[in-house]
């Protein structure tokens, strides 16, 4: 579905069912350079099991108007504008990587509008190498290759997809290539400059789950340790998964999300 948010078109996939503001809503937010399709094998289940789903294309990504917003703070505020446009008072927020930063920051800012928090492939901070950052800002193909090679765990690099016949490296690379030039760099810079503060963690009082990949090289399990201080947060580590657990092990990722959402 398309929403009008702050004068621009925002695209949100609804998992194959029309959005119904009367149902518990879940907002899914993708990571740097990606779009809503990374959640395809989680969102459809929720949409067909009594939830209303908004899998967003962040500004400047996928089918949403640009420009991309360049700070996590701005994106966190934007999420509430999306909820307003959809007629949803509140929602559970699920984010991956950069999307996890957005979800966490949003939950800290307006806890009254957030029902629950699911943070996939998350960390307290995500420093980005200068080489990757520059390649991303310049729209160089190298950035897509580095993200794909580091994003997928070693096991997934050799395949074994749950979705029969799909080659995960090719899919990730192509998704990044479809993005608008330089946007992935803007995203990476936003991640690089953001750091989850102890104060933000203190403000979060909603149920939370951290979904981590045991073989994540972009946000290793140990990098998420400070987030475990979120009150009542539980941590689920998916064995053999890398950073892109929703694609690498979609079933286990869904099962992990189902424990909360």
């Amino acid at each position: 579905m398309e929403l009008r948010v702050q004068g621009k078109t925002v695209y949100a996939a609804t998992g194959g069912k029309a959005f119904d503001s009367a149902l518990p809503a879940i907002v899914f937010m993708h990571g740097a350079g990606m779009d809503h399709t990374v959640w395809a094998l989680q969102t459809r289940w929720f949409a067909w099991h009594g939830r209303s789903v908004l899998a967003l294309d962040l500004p400047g990504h996928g089918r949403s108007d640009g420009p991309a917003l360049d700070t996590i703070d701005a994106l966190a505020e934007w999420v509430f504008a999306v909820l307003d446009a959809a007629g949803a008072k509140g929602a559970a927020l699920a984010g991956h990587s950069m999307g996890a930063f957005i979800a966490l920051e949003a939950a800290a800012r307006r806890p009254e509008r957030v029902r629950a928090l699911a943070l996939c492939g998350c960390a307290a901070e995500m420093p980005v190498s200068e080489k990757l950052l520059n390649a991303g800002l310049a729209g160089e193909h190298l950035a897509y290759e580095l993200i794909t090679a580091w994003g997928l765990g070693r096991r997934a690099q050799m395949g074994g997809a749950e979705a029969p016949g799909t080659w995960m490296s090719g899919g990730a690379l192509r998704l990044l290539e479809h993005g608008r030039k330089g946007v992935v760099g803007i995203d990476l810079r936003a991640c690089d400059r953001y750091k989850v503060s102890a104060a933000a963690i203190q403000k979060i009082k909603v149920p939370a789950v951290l979904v981590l990949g045991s073989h994540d090289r972009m946000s290793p399990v140990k990098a998420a340790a400070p987030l475990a201080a979120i009150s009542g947060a539980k941590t689920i580590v998916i064995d053999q998964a890398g950073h892109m657990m929703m694609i690498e092990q979609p079933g286990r990722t869904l099962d992990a999300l189902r424990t909360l959402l």
Partner: protein
Amino acid sequence: MAEANFAKFDTLSLHAGQHPDPLFGARAVPIYQTTSYVFRDTDHAAALFNLERAGHIYSRISNPTVAVLEERLAALEGGVGCVATASGQAALFLGIATLMGQGGHIVSSASIYGGSHNLFTHTLPRFGIATTFVHPRDTDGFKRALRPETRLVFGETLGNPGLEIMDLPAVATIAHKHGVPLMVDNTFATPYLCRPFEHGVDLVIHSATKFLGGHGVAIAGALIDSGRFDWEASGKFPTLTEPYAGYHGLDFAEEFGPGAFIMRARAEGLRDFGATMAPQTAFYILQGVETLHVRVPRHVANARRVAEYLTRNPAVEWVSYPDLPSHPDHERAKKLLPKGSGSIFSFGIKGGREAGRRFIESLQLFSHLANVGDAKSLVIHPASTTHQQMDAAALKAAGIGEELVRLSVGLEDPDDLVEDLSRALRAAQPRRMAAE
């Protein structure tokens, strides 16, 4: 972190798509000879059927052994996914049926496999799909043949049997400007010699029966999606960009992005048309794929040796092999197929049809049969076999004369192959000429 460290082609040939069997540690890909898979519970079953979860339901739609082959071929071609099929022809039809229905139009190279030519000329019109043929070297001809209802441009990496090489990047640009994809049959080249997606091609099909298997024991096909074509921007492919009632209104492009085409091909095409690859077949083809990078260079070396020999034989009118400087597409071959132009090529024998008959019947190592890409050397006379349904005009357009003999050079010792050809060429000629 200077560069991305992806596994290379040779490694992918052996490992892509497979991890050692978690139950018993089997290193080889197990043959999952099963029709169906036990659901965990009723919700799991419903979720699989509604594409809420990924997994196997019924082996007509997917099978774990076949899925390994599919991933491996997608990896070797550099695509996002693959659907393995019962044959190469099934892959071609599946690709077409996923893109268009009644009223659709195809622009195709005229120099293609006879079976594909039959499909386009005689069978698809019964389903309301028309085809315009263009000489593969007539790049502008592809542009002229496009119509508002065109939904696909098609060709072969190496034309059959003339080995014409289309200007893939130029034809791809023409197709894309018209908002339609370019599909290429990459059977003769294999991804070892040419990766069409790197030259602008959007979809690739294979007869995996040929070099991918390499052993001549199984009929198999594959349809591979680059994931690059923007179906939404084109606006000409409602099967991919509009809600599909067959899956509760699923919009494939919206839901699966770059994987839209290959997901629809499986979800609808295998479900409804059912031209599925058997797990035993996938196992056979996997054995071949594991040595593709070792076999193909030897095929090419043998073919070059044989082709050079034939150019010097007085009983040979001409030799058409892109690796020879005399071939019209030699320069293009160097760009698109830098590691060689495969091991299938044709030559003209002096003495026409009768000499061709005597030649083929005199060969001992080369087997006379309707296949190519085997480890064993093969020979055929296309005008009377693979392309016999084509009329004289179509044969001429495809460059197939009565004197044309097609070889598929195998992996035997090249000295033995040359000796076999030499003996058969002598036997094929009238005594006077042979004496000369």
